[in-house]
């Protein structure tokens, strides 16, 4: 018996072709029949049948129904690049205030990413109780603090690397190494999109540049390239979205029509070839995108009160200009969500200009001054985005995920006024579809150094996001290089307490 078992090969085989494969005499039709009847075809070792999205090569972004009941229809990730300190934003530690200036007990000899540690250091920003929940949030982010009753905090996040590149890889792809598909690519692969004129997955880089790990954060990895994140923001449009000005509009249309005739003539010689049909369809989708994307990226129709809500209407200083530029990205994110784009990944912070701590959250040396820029840039626009999503009813079907690659140390680095990297404990939060409101899950120790209560791994975090989308992280797999790969590798448990 030589069963040549089906797999998802390089091209997007549809179910029809996949079944055709089985019947080639490579294995007997009878066997396939038996396996199919027993539900064993494609069983995986977790004992669960893999979810294999039925992808029409001609319509890769067609919406696909998740196998389980979904709470969220789409996802908006807000990624603070550079490792945003939980201790200066959302994780309140009275003990840190009390022991300010003392060494961290039991960790006097600790060596972290950049070296030795100095004393425990309280946050330069006051924490205050907020809203009905009384959640303690710092004054660094007052607008977000005001929304504490809508947020679902996970204070016990734990990573496994203390370098930015692997850390961003881990948060965005579930692997510390380069080359794996991003969360958004997995979701676009599984679910397609609600809109057929826009990419299924859009990454919005910070106005200051790309994050530390650049396109790895929205890469397709070994998934088909159709599911990669398309990156553009309010300032930089999709590359090659439109021809250079030299091509006249009517000529453009005529060329497109002529091309379609060429391609149809060619496809007619290979009847039934899905790849050729897909190519024709891809030009039609591209033409729709060419019309739709400038529309969605054009913020000129946004009224003054919306611009004000996000802080997109103020400028004149470095902070305000940067904030306004990020705010425009936030508005773009809302417009994409509104259109039904399945996965939007919005970045706050960039490595491109200035490096360490200057244009991102990597506050090693001068936390007070650097975060005094980053806090305001993040705060009002992000809060505006949440408010706007909520008032439009979009928060009911959109899962908002706020994350960063890891946390920072409760101590200041020896001889400096900033915090070193700390993957042992940090905070992320969720909001919107399917998650509890004004809720906090898990905790770090008294100083905020290590997650100690209800520890949530990045894999758990991913499993939870997939779960909310109606996807079982153990069933969403793709064969690559000898392995049936998962976003969550061989780990991950859904964090049930955060579910509404």
């Amino acid at each position, binding site marked *: 018996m030589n069963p040549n078992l089906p*797999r998802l090969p390089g091209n997007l085989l549809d179910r029809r072709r996949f079944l*055709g494969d089985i019947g080639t005499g490579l294995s007997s039709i009878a066997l396939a029949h038996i*396996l199919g009847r027993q539900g064993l075809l494609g069983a995986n*070792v977790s004992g669960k049948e893999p979810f294999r999205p039925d992808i029409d090569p001609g319509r890769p972004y067609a919406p696909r129904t998740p196998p389980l009941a979904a709470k969220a229809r789409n996802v908006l990730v807000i990624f603070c690049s550079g490792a945003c300190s939980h201790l200066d934003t959302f994780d309140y530690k009275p003990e840190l205030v009390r022991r300010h200036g003392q060494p961290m007990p039991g960790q006097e000899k600790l060596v972290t990413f950049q070296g030795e540690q100095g004393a425990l250091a309280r946050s330069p920003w006051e924490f205050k109780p907020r809203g009905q929940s009384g959640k303690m949030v710092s004054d660094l982010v007052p607008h977000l603090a005001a929304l504490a009753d809508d947020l679902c905090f996970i204070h016990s996040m734990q990573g496994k690397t203390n370098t930015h590149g692997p850390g961003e890889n881990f948060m965005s792809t579930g692997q510390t190494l380069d080359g794996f598909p991003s969360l958004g690519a997995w979701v676009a692969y599984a679910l397609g999109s609600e809109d057929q004129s826009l990419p299924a997955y859009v990454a919005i880089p910070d106005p200051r540049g790309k994050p530390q790990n650049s*396109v790895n954060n929205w890469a397709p990895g070994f998934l088909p390239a*159709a599911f990669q994140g398309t990156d553009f923001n309010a300032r930089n449009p999709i*590359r090659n979205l439109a021809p250079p000005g030299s091509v006249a509009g009517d000529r453009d249309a005529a*060329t497109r029509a002529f091309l379609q005739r060429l391609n149809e003539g060619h496809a007619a010689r290979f009847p*039934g070839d899905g790849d050729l049909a897909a190519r024709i369809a891809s030009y039609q989708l591209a033409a729709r995108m060419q019309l739709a994307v400038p529309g969605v990226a054009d913020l000129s129709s946004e009224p003054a009160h919306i611009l004000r809500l996000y802080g997109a209407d103020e400028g004149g200083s470095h902070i305000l200009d940067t904030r306004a530029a990020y705010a425009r990205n936030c508005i773009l994110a809302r417009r994409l969500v509104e259109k039904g784009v399945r996965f939007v990944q919005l970045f706050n912070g960039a490595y491109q200009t200035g490096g360490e701590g200057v244009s991102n959250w990597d506050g090693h040396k001068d936390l007070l001054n650097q975060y005094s820029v980053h806090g305001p840039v993040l705060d009002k626009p992000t809060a505006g985005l949440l408010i706007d999503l909520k008032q439009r009813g979009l928060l009911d079907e959109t899962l908002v995920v706020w994350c960063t690659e890891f946390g920072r140390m409760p101590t200041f680095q020896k001889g400096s006024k900033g915090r070193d990297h700390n993957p042992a404990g940090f905070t992320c939060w969720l909001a919107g579809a399917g998650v509890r409101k004004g809720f906090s899950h898990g905790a770090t120790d008294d100083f905020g150094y290590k997650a100690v209560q209800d520890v949530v791994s990045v894999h758990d975090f991913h499993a939870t996001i997939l779960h909310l989308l109606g996807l079982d992280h153990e069933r969403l797999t793709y064969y690559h290089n000898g392995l*049936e790969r998962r976003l969550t590798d061989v780990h991950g448990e859904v964090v049930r307490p955060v579910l509404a």
Partner: protein
Amino acid sequence: MKRGTSLLDVLTACHVARRVAAAAVVGLAAMTALGGEAPAPHWAFQPVRRPDVPAASAGIPPIDAFVRARLDAARIAPSPEAPRSVLIRRMYLVMLGVPPTPEEVAAFVGDAAPDAYERLVERVLEDRRLGERWARHWLDVVRFAESNGFETNRERLTAWRYRDYVIAAFNQDKPFDEFVREQVAGDVLNAPVATGFLVGGPVDIVKSPDPALTAQQRADELDDMVATTGTAFLGLTLGCARCHAHKFDPITQSEYHGMAALLSGVQHGERDLPPTPDRAAHLAATDARIRGLEATLARYVAKETEAPAASPANARPPVDFARNEETFAPVAARYVRFTILASSGGEPCLDELEAWAGERNVALASNGSRATASGTLAGHAIHQLAHVNDGKTGNEHSWISNEPGRGWIQVEFPRTETIQRIVWGRDRGGAFKDRLATRYKIEVATETNRWQRVAGSAERAPFPGASHVPTTPTYELAGVPEAEAGEARRAIEDLGLARKERARIAAADKAYTGTFTQPGETRRFHRGDPLQPRESVAPATLSLFQPLALDPKAPEQERRMALARWLASATNPLTARVIVNRVWQHHFGTGLVDTPNDLGRNGARPTHPELLDWLASELVAEGWSLKKLHRRILLSATWRQSSAPQPAAQRIDAASRLLWRFPPRRLEAEAIRDGVLAISGNLDPTPGGPGFYLHDVDRENVYHYHPKERFGPAESRRMVYAFKVRMEQDAIFGSFDCPDGSLVTPRRSMSTTPLQALNLFNSRFILDQAGLFAARIEREAGPGPSDRVRRAWALAYQRPPTEPELRDGEAFASAHGTAALCRAILNSSEILFIP
């Protein structure tokens, strides 16, 4: 493991393995059906035994005999031979990665000789573009790229040598076993560049004092090497045994670590390459010339060394970085010369040279004085000869010599002056503590060549730091008759040039091929965690086949040689099967085993197991020649079949795995770009050397790569020569599933996306190429509109247009121009497909 003891649980939860589990289930079903026999040993771990060619098909090529046997069993008829115009296009695209020219097509289509096809095959096998095409496939398998990846993603400027090595290996038909051995131990086998394989993968260069991070980084580096060695050569997912015994193949965690111990002396980095014979000869000749010139000039070697005073007690203070003053009895001078004989390191620097006559600094340019120098370090606006007497001091207004440890400055006054004091410094700003003249002398003259020493370092206490004294002599021509001095000066100049030439030749070529150091003990890491080392593991190959164990202290090189020999052994059951399968895959789109990096139990079974083994045994018997394998495949009727669909066959075998036709498929990113350039007549065939850039690079701590918007002739070479950056893609062709070398890619995805359409339809690159294509047509075609359409079709598709295409093309081109026609053609499906 969370559940009980069902079959599925026994297989356990490593990387969820549908295939494996399903295979096991099928195995179980089969076993049950057959009455519970033990499962057979895994086919790929058995020695390759040459199967008999099916007898029923005597007289036809063996490949066809094996393929026909399967087709007959499935009751499918093979397809007829494809037309010649299709065959030549297919052959060029598959073998060379570029389309043939219309002239090559015409010659082949019109060739009446009975061996026309065979001669085409021979010609193509000797075409050097073959190496460029097939190297790209191998580079995918070995995750080759030219940047480090991770967040810094810095360039590896000498990694291209490995890419050129692979191209040359395929063109020279280097026996594959040799190719394997060289990539593991090329430093021993006179192929030093080949070990670029070992360190081809990404590496995190962000280091930290944190020992846990450092251990993890090293473990990841080594795992990349071990896992890639496993998949590339053996088609085995060795990496699965890093944390626990392999779930499907007989590989224990200790065996993984034994393999790791074989490679644990390999570090990322560049290595000096030994000089080539040419270079050695050039070096010897240049040395002889230098010795000759030195002999000629021996009589002019300066006697004076200006060594510091032997008894520092009554000496002047040592030289100072900021400011030094020399006083002497008043002397008549038209010229003053400051000769540097040693520096505190590097090329010496003077910020100002002052010569005082009473209260006047007569050296100032504003006084009419003129400065000359032995030479000035090029490329720095703040370091200029004119700065030495401009009255401004400090590093920002200084002169730097162009030679380490020496140089001279001479100032000529407009008239003879009586001077008594010289003041000089390196940086009177006090910031720079380098490049100080530590040995020097100051001379004056009323006419050149009559120099009189007035001061120098010999009267000073020794400089407290290190001094860089040039190893070559300084020549002194004072007092030499002018004619002779002229000769000598020319000889000095020649000597300088010869030394530079020597330095250029002698600077070893470097290549990113790894460095090798004797490794320490290898320990098994519990659960793959480098912070949980367990028992010691000796370097050893897998027990799967003729295991080889080395002494735990075996020398580094010996380890890799042992691994190399074991991998490339003729009796290794995997190596030949794996490469035969890869070659087959790149001919037909899918391998005989469609999991090319996994021939283990978790992999797919071959569609034609006997054919695979027959080809593998043939490969070894024929000296591991890949060109012979290509020839066999190309001459088969199976390869020459039409790709036209056949509904009856498609109903049974939609994916054409049984090869009732040649399966048509889309080209990869590189071949699409190369093809566009070839069609527009703009492809630069220059082979080899450093890659061209598709990006502009910001070289900060973290490197950023911005896609170029405009392309010129420099970017018109084949894409295999593009500098291969991890994480970033070519802005146009990257969307055609082009891998970035972060992971191995045994088989590329072939997706179709709207971004591909946007990139081809709207990018400036394609519009530019459409313009060049149009100009080419207008140049090469006859004057009529139909001539142009015919020429366009011949160049792009290697066929004449159909009647409707001709009419449509003519009408479209006359309404919108030839460039618009060409833009549509460069976007059309037909140019992207292997027919």
